[in-house]
């Protein structure tokens, strides 16, 4: 049977010590249950471990894609980006950190603004991304949150935010802190206009973001096991000099203490948002909403924040709606 014999050995065996299966980029280990998950499966389950329901942190653009109808949305305000207003230098100058954050995350800022339809309702969404400087809120993030709120007022639409943040951005000092006041003031106008605001808290939501827009939703939803709080766990431990109980500051802890309305699995999030919007968007309360949604959408940018409109909503504070 000589024709089975290999005549020349062109394929050389890999030396035993170098043999390994290349799985880089194919599998990802779940940090909770330690199961090796194929990336493809993980994508299909929206970055949720199918075995233990661990919710991986989600890229802001992926978040938008799985939230809007047909995955379609128009990105807004991407030109609003951070600058080094204070000349802040820690172990690295702040401008260098910004360049690095943009490269690492592939995002222009720690939040991405978008406009689109969810369950046929016109919604402005701000999705934060923890991979951009810990999702910290500086001037640009505060400005972008304010802009989606003002746009929603102008277009009689709803607002949804997905927060993921370590809090105010230290490198912009008090300018960061004041963003808490700015976005909260904008939200009071949204409330005055009786427009919906749904706040979704994802892992982690802490500090200045929690203590401003994230806790001001008409309805507040948290993703399972997300860490949510005001002060960081280490700061609390140092202050009270004792170990924190298991599950402290988890989404479930907040639910138990009455701080969020519900804990919703990411795979159930979109249907839940649609249910809530169906309840909140009421043509009798805001007649233009339905029209805008119907007339939508010739893909036009909506960069029309007119100051009169805004102060118009403000002056309505005068005559309270009956």
């Amino acid at each position, binding site marked *: 049977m000589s024709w089975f014999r290999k005549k020349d050995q062109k394929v050389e065996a890999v030396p035993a010590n170098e043999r390994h299966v290349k799985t880089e980029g194919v599998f990802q280990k779940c940090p909770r249950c330690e199961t090796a998950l194929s990336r493809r499966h993980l994508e299909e389950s929206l970055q949720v471990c199918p075995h233990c329901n661990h919710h991986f942190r989600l890229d802001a653009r992926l978040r938008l894609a799985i939230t809007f109808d047909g995955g379609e949305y128009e990105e807004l305000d991407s*030109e*609003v*980006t*951070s*600058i080094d*207003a*204070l*000349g*802040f230098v*820690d*172990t690295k100058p702040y401008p260098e950190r910004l360049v690095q954050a943009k490269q690492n995350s592939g995002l222009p800022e720690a939040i991405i603004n978008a406009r689109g339809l969810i369950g046929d309702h016109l919604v402005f969404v701000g999705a934060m991304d923890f991979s951009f400087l810990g999702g910290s809120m*500086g*001037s*640009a993030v505060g*400005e972008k949150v*304010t802009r989606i709120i003002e746009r929603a007022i102008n277009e009689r639409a709803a607002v949804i935010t997905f927060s993921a943040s370590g809090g*105010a951005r*230290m490198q*912009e*000092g*008090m*300018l*960061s*802190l*004041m*963003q*808490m*006041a*700015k976005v909260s*003031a904008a*939200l*009071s*106008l949204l*409330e*005055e206009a009786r427009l919906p605001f749904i706040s979704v808290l994802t892992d982690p939501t802490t*500090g*200045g973001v*929690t*203590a*401003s827009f*994230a*806790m*001001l939703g008409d309805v507040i939803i948290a993703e399972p096991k997300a860490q949510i*709080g*005001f*002060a*960081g766990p280490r*700061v*609390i431990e140092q*202050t*009270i000099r004792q170990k924190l109980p298991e599950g*402290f*500051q988890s989404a479930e802890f907040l639910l138990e*203490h009455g*701080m969020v309305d519900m804990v919703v699995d990411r795979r159930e999030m979109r249907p839940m948002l649609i249910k809530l919007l169906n309840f909140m968007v009421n043509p009798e309360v805001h007649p233009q909403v339905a029209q805008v949604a119907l007339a939508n959408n010739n893909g036009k940018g909506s960069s029309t924040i007119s100051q009169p409109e*805004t*102060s118009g909503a*403000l*002056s309505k*504070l005068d005559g309270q709606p009956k």
Partner: protein
Amino acid sequence: MNETTIVNDPLTALERVKLARHKDRPYTLDFIERLFEDFVELHGDRRFAEDAAIVCGLARFHGSPVVVLGHQKGRGTKQSVRRNFGMPKPEGYRKALRMLKLAEKFNRPVFSFIDTSGAYPGIDAEERGQAEAIAHNLRESSKLRVPVIVTVIGEGGSGGALAIGLGDRVLMLENAVYSVITPEGCAAILWKDAGEAERAATNLRLTASELYRLGIIDRVVAEPPGGAHTTHDETARLLDDALQETLAEVTQFDPPSRLTQRYKRLRALGRWTTSV
């Protein structure tokens, strides 16, 4: 070290921080005693508890009824513990909101005094919604129809300060500081070394003059030579002048235009770019 020499020298940011925390510095009640008459302290948030880290009530300012509120630190161990070192819990912020609503109902101006190292970071505070209490105050005070004048008298500690710090005008005593994080906390996170507090303090731009330059506060109120801790009476007198002028300034507007101005003022805060 002799305090007087420090004050007369050009001060570093960290030296201002130390002055702002000075144990003899006038606290909110010291100012209330000197600036207001007929102070009636009110207590409790009607939800959970009284919080002595915030004092508030009704008073008269040069004869006219007003609402006053502010963080209150204690002197000595016993008082400090009673006041929780000036670190409010959610019930403190909810009590403050009650006062703001009272002011609104009876159409009286509000004077708020800031002096805290921050909101209390504890298990109970988190359980009762520290973040929610602060956020709620921010939203509600942005739409108050009555004049609100805020003065940072000592330490302005992040969100715990801002929670009662949103107003038509923000004044700041010369040696007070106002920061997104304590210099020590910032140093521990960014430099991984709390010993770098000096550099953190400088970088954070937390002094009154820096914050005036950044447009975050509206007026720096001079302290007597030697600093506020050397004479409470004189400090109060200087602040009194500033408060009277500021009150006159904001009361000349009707509520709608005051609200528009307040929104515009907040709306303009921040520095960013739109050039790609």
